[in-house]
């Protein structure tokens, strides 16, 4: 709709950009953005406006304000990964996905906050501080929260966004942009999407280029897409997907962007409900939401059956070994010599390396590096790394078997509970939290499958609850069609934020579809 509005001239790109920027300023307390690229954004908006004036917009995304997680390289704009190691680092090149967005005329508002180097499930462990879930300030949440003492508690009661792409999720959720890029290695796009009530898409591994995405786990990372509705996600996907010669892990096949059909009939679908996803710690709310969703499909004529993915219980442990091993390897390049932070210690090269890395990385990162190196030692390699690779194949095969048996889509919860208050969350350390929170999302990364979070309902506390759909490799079209159908059925409520109301105008009112 916003795109239509731009085309029809009801609003101009610069107006749009300015409104988003000022909303951004009013919601600064969310800490969703690390860097706001005001000047360049306005310039891009002006250029877009010129194109619209000439009647030659580049496409649906022309003039649309977007945000990008701060682990994607952006030329001329600081890229920090929320780490001391890269504070002040200005990359000379754009990540392929960033370049594609810019080539479509999108307006890049800024870089969003995350857990340091994307390690975490709360977006709380970056050097720029934690991200606050916009729903913490929503009428829905405030109404439901137990009134204790006064405004002081509003401060301490705020809930996390989930992670690690929390900044991107918060940005989309709070209307400061229309789409954002995140990354997903173990659930880092879907998890915050669920907690912030937005759509979070993890595409199939190999569909979208990782060139320019600072890697966490090369064999599992994908760029993630966060939007307010499924149609928008499809549009962004269409502009990003496809082979990139700079990324040898992208598939060669041609990608055809698709127009997402509006399914009316789901009776030909077979929905699988994996019983292992009834994980310990799953809240009763989510459990009942999950059942309701299954019922919804059944009543609409789809075949809904229980399936089994027997190796699910090993996935967290397996992930830890493979993830830390790759992290240890990927972080080896941060030695302070070519770029980034360099310690003042100059007694010897080795001591400079050691000091730089100690100063540059937080505990979480250092912990993973140490573990990873341990698993990669010659004497451990067979027992840990190779073993984990084998288990990974078993996990991937679980999915293959289920899809081969005729199931089209899997329906699962995305998170165990709704967003927890920050003060609760930090009581456990990062590793524990990650292990708990990744459990429902992480297997899709192991198997490279596409998965999407769709906001489904509000919890008793007035916070978003999402459900996850997992599809077959490279079958995003089918996955998104089903997700869109589901989205239409549940009619998830719009967030009611004071700040947004203040900046209210037509464009923000009908908020289900932004682009078409």
């Amino acid at each position, binding site marked *: 709709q916003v795109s239509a509005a731009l085309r029809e001239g009801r609003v101009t790109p610069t107006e749009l950009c300015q409104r988003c920027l000022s909303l951004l300023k009013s919601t600064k307390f969310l800490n969703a953005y690390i860097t706001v690229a005001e000047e360049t954004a306005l310039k891009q908006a002006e250029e877009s406006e010129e194109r619209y004036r000439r009647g030659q917009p580049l496409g649906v995304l022309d003039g649309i304000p977007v945000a990008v997680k701060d682990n994607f390289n952006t030329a001329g704009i600081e890229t920090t990964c929320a780490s001391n190691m890269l504070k002040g680092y200005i990359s000379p090149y754009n990540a392929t996905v960033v370049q594609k967005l810019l080539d479509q005329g999108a307006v890049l508002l800024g870089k969003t906050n995350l857990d340091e180097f994307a390690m975490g499930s709360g977006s709380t462990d970056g050097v720029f501080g934690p991200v606050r879930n916009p729903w913490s300030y929503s009428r829905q949440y405030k109404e439901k929260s137990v009134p204790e003492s006064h405004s002081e508690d509003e401060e301490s009661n705020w809930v996390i966004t989930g992670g690690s792409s929390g900044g991107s999720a918060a940005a989309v959720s709070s209307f400061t942009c229309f789409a954002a890029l995140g990354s997903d290695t173990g659930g880092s796009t879907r998890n915050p999407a669920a907690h912030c009530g937005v759509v979070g898409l993890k595409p199939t591994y190999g569909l979208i280029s990782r060139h320019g995405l600072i890697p966490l786990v090369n064999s599992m990372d994908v760029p993630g897409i966060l939007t307010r509705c499924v149609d928008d996600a499809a549009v962004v996907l269409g502009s990003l997907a496809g082979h990139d010669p700079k990324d040898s892990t992208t598939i060669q096949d041609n990608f055809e962007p698709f127009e997402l059909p509006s399914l009316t009939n789901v009776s030909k679908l077979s929905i699988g409900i994996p019983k292992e996803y009834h994980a310990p710690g799953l809240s009763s709310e989510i459990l009942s939401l999950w059942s309701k969703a299954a019922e919804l499909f059944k009543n609409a004529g789809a075949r809904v059956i229980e399936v089994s993915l027997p190796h699910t219980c090993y996935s967290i442990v397996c992930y830890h070994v493979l993830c830390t091993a790759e992290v240890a390897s990927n972080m080896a390049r941060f030695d302070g010599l070519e770029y980034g932070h360099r310690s003042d210690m100059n007694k010897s090269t080795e001591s400079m390396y050691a000091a730089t890395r100690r100063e540059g990385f937080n505990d979480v990162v250092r912990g993973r590096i140490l573990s990873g190196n341990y698993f990669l030692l*010659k004497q451990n390699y067979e027992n840990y790394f190779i073993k984990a690779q084998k288990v990974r194949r078993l996990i991937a095969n679980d999915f293959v078997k289920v899809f081969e048996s005729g199931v089209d889509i899997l329906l699962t919860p995305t998170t165990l509970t709704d967003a927890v208050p920050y003060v609760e969350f930090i009581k456990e350390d990062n590793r524990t939290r990650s292990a708990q929170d990744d459990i429902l999302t992480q297997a899709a990364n192991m198997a490279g499958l596409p998965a999407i979070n769709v906001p489904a309902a509000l919890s008793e506390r007035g916070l978003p609850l999402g459900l996850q759909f997992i599809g077959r490799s490279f079958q995003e079209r089918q996955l998104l069609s089903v997700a869109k159908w589901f989205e239409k059925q549940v009619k998830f409520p719009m967030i009611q934020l004071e700040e947004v109301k203040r900046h209210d105008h037509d464009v923000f009112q009908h908020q289900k579809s932004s682009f078409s």
Partner: protein
Amino acid sequence: WIPVVGLEIHAQISSNSKLFSGSQVQFAAPPNSLVSFFDASLPGTLPVLNRRCVEAAVMTGLALNCSINKKSLFDRKHYFYADLPAGYQITQQRVPIAVNGSLSYSLCIDNKMSQMVTKTVRIKQIQLEQDSGKSLHDDTRSQTLVDLNRAGKLGLFSCFSSPFSAAVRELQLILQTLGSSQAVMAEGQLRVDANVSVHQPGELYGVRTEVKNINSLRFLAKAVDYEIQRQIEELENGGTILNETRAFDSKLGCTLPMRDKEGKQDYRFMPEPNLPPLILYDAKSLPANMNHQQVVNIDWIHERLPDLPSVKRAKLVEWYGILPEHSFTLLNEDGLTEFFENVVKQTQMKPKRVIGWILNDLLSYLKQHSLTVKESPVSSFLLADLLNLLEKKEISSTAAKQVLAELWKGEGKTPLEIVKEKKLGLIQDQKELEQICQAVIDGRENEVIAIKAGNRKVLNKLIGLVQRETQGRSNPVLVKQLLEKKLLE
């Protein structure tokens, strides 16, 4: 004592751009001017395999009789070092591109080229890997091609008596012939490390040491020999050999322990996740609809392999009737074979005689002035011209050598012009020659008597005198005939 020596040879692939990034390759470029984002290991960059490098590796594998692995894998080898920006090197540790080959080379016995034996050495594997940053940063040499190592030390005899040097030399030639690497040690395009151990017959292999910092083929022989001796002496004196890395010191002619590399280095090998397995095809396995640009076809490469040095040498011997040791020298000197063949084409002189002029005269001039064949002031055309004069008996071979010396000055004169100028042409007029012979005979009564009495050796003196009279412009064979005719009939 049985020494066991393994050589680890690093050859820089000759290609326009680097193995994993798109940046250019150029010797002696200003430091850090050829670094792409990937080379600097900027975060978020990914390796992209260079097709030409894969082809070079396959060619080399085929030339060395290896089995080419249709599926090979890439790994990361981790260690921290200033010249390794990413903190790891991409290599092929698990499954390299080619395995189980062999290299045949010729070894001189007692430094005599006339006694050469053919030996074969096993090639364990060929793997593709990233070069570290050293060669980028340390280069301050100039671009000229004068390379004393190559020109000087090999001398006229390009034959090694050390099997290691001989084998590596042959490998160099093969790589150069294939075009897969220029393989010049002095330019860092070829580096050799030696692994050495010794053991008693019947016992297990001994502890091995790695010897690095070997900068030429001659030093290779010295380094290995020294290390073998050192180990034998150490063991015979009751000592032990440490599994360490040693550097060869060319000035002292010995190996010294290098700064401790932390005893056992664990490289924490891990598969390179950004490079899918490298799949190669042959005619049988090539899928029908596959884009030719996207694949490397082993059979296609095999068909296009140029003649390897051993084949080239055999052909030279067969076609031109030259000796095997000649073929070695021809191949060892860059451009010499071509020069030789060009001369042969342009002259009536038999190749067997031409080769002498090439190897004895031309080559020694080149060596004296430290020039390469390409830089020779005497072109194949000029030399052929000169040899034709000789062949037509218009000059003597002594005169020819004088002409060559003049040609060498490079003043642009043709052989004929020089002959005329210096009056080096053989006297063609038989009568004139007869007169001179007669004059000499008349002046040397004693010698004449001796000859008529049966002392043939004295005839040579008369020939010499005629030569002096004619200032070298008489054909000795003809003179001899004339004198004999006059004296013995």
